[in-house]
């Protein structure tokens, strides 16, 4: 499998604070890697290094087989970036923004209206971005990231603080781009989003990657798979957790069933957040 993004022992520190501590990872072609971590974990610094805004102080990055230190402009011509911070030209309309950025990519003709439709952003032609809601701006940022038909997308907290409709629109676009073969680096502290979208997730905390794997593998390997049974005992409702790995689980179920009246029972898997806490001792949000 072609490694579209390859980071080897990259590090970056602000003054004396090590924000990213010699991390290594790769992303295969057409894959979505969810980069999970709480605020200040090093997600944005990592993405800034990958897109060339920061030069790694140690290590090496290659994107699409090109070294970011040597062929940055060639790389930037083939990537799309959606920032966490809204950095649009607010005094321009959505279409003017898209046309301006298209001109920087050397694209003379763009179907701005189709791009806006793609991200479900229906606005007046001359409406200034300054009057847009946060969700509308985020969708426009997403449209801007797609302006050059990028092979690689870098999305920094693309649904952070969005209403459910806007968040869904953004997620749909991400999945659509993946379908088309784009490779996507997604940073988020929303574990539900990461679970839904990512082929693999990496946990980053205090600048270090704790683990990197598919959500299913992580849940299987590190999650506690249990069966919860609720039954009635002397008029009270009792709840009991049984491990699915326990050899005596069936015997215990039979025992409860013979003596008591079972109200309900269901299996429960660990969430990515549970696993993150297990690895880092920190919660994902905040």
């Amino acid at each position, binding site marked *: 499998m072609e490694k579209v993004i390859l980071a080897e022992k990259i590090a970056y520190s602000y003054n004396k604070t090590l924000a990213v501590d010699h991390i290594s990872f790769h992303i295969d072609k057409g894959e979505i890697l969810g980069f999970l971590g709480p605020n200040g974990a090093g997600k944005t610094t990592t993405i800034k290094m990958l897109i060339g805004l*920061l030069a790694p102080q140690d290590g090496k990055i290659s994107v699409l087989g090109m070294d970011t230190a040597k062929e940055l*402009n060639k790389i930037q011509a083939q990537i799309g*970036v959606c920032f966490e911070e809204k*950095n649009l030209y607010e005094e321009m309309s959505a279409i003017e923004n898209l046309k301006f950025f298209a001109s*920087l990519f*050397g694209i003379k003709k763009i179907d701005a209206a189709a791009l806006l439709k793609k991200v479900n952003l229906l606005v007046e032609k001359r409406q200034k971005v300054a009057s847009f809601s946060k969700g509308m701006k985020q969708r426009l940022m997403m449209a801007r990231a797609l302006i050059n038909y990028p092979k690689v997308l870098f999305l920094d907290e693309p649904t952070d603080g969005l209403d459910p409709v806007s968040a869904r629109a953004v997620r749909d676009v991400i999945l659509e781009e993946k379908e088309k073969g784009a490779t996507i680096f997604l940073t988020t502290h929303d574990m539900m989003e990461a679970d839904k979208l990512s082929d693999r997730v990496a946990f980053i905390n205090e600048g270090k990657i704790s683990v990197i794997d598919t959500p299913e593998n992580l849940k299987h390997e590190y999650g506690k798979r249990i069966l919860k049974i609720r039954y009635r005992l002397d008029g009270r409702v009792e709840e009991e957790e049984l491990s699915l790995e326990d050899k005596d689980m069936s015997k215990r179920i039979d025992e409860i069933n013979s003596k008591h009246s079972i109200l309900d029972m269901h299996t429960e898997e660990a969430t990515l957040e549970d696993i993150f806490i297990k690895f880092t001792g920190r919660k994902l949000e905040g």
Partner: protein
Amino acid sequence: MSISRIFSIMKRELSLGPRSPMLLFALALPLILTAVFQLIFGGLWQEKPVLAVYDVGDGVVISELEKNKAIDIIDADSEDEILNLVEVREADVGVIFPQDIEDILKEGKEVTLKTYVDGEAYAKDRTIIAATMLSVLRSIAPEGPEVDFEQILLGEERGLGILEMMLPFLVLYGVMGGAFLGPAILLVGAKEKKTITALLVTPSSKAEILAAFGIMGVVLAVIMGIVVLLLNGGWTQPPLMIPLLILSSIFMAELGLIAGLAVNDLNTLFANMKIFGILLVAPELFIIFPKWPQWIAKIFPTYYFMHPVLRISIYGDGLAEVGWELLVLLGFIILFFIPIPFLAKRLGK
């Protein structure tokens, strides 16, 4: 480096960037100051330069001169009358056209024109009169008239008036508004609004972005410089003045880019301007107070812009006199370019 990307960024900034209230104020200030100075010290509605003419021959040149609207003509009857008109300052310049001047010029022979010049007359008025006379003579001898001016100065050479002393300051302000504040405000504004990071992840290089901001500043500054010079009657010798304005605008644009790269917010930019701005305008003090040791003025880079403006506009100096100052200015441009690539490394962090 892509010219089309530079042009795209410039186009955007020119169409939307100068809406910044601070930049608009900076651009308007030299015009406001010009209006204030002109109103207080006169000059805005100054009359046209006056040329007294005595044509010994048939008056063909006078009739041609009278068609020209740049100067007023007094038709004198004798050389004595010319002398008197200039002495009593009813005319800035008096000229005597010899007999058969038309034939002499047409034959391609050299003609000597005796001129009386009022020492108190403005240099720009003298320049306008000389240019007008040459234009009329050229219409008589299109191949190029061979003219030698025999100049007799009447009275003392005048000292500098307030308007003339302030001219370099006003032009500097105009150039500063466009070339220094333009790139600085746009760059810091782009950093504050984070739009600079959006630009930096496109194929546009830092050099292209800075070049776009810088060129835009230079264009604005040259226009501002010309406007201020025109409003103050200092627009003389365009072939020399335009290169001077371009060089000084490039120098100021470099300072603007350095300031824009070094600071991250507009408040800090303006605070620093209050502190360091005096260094830019300091040479003006040495123009106002000519008895101060003039070598001190030469320490300041802007001296090599303000002094040539004064010499060209007011004294009518040419390349031979101010050429070395333009070369020093070019040296400063090279010197102040050096820190820009180093500071640019911080962009986007």
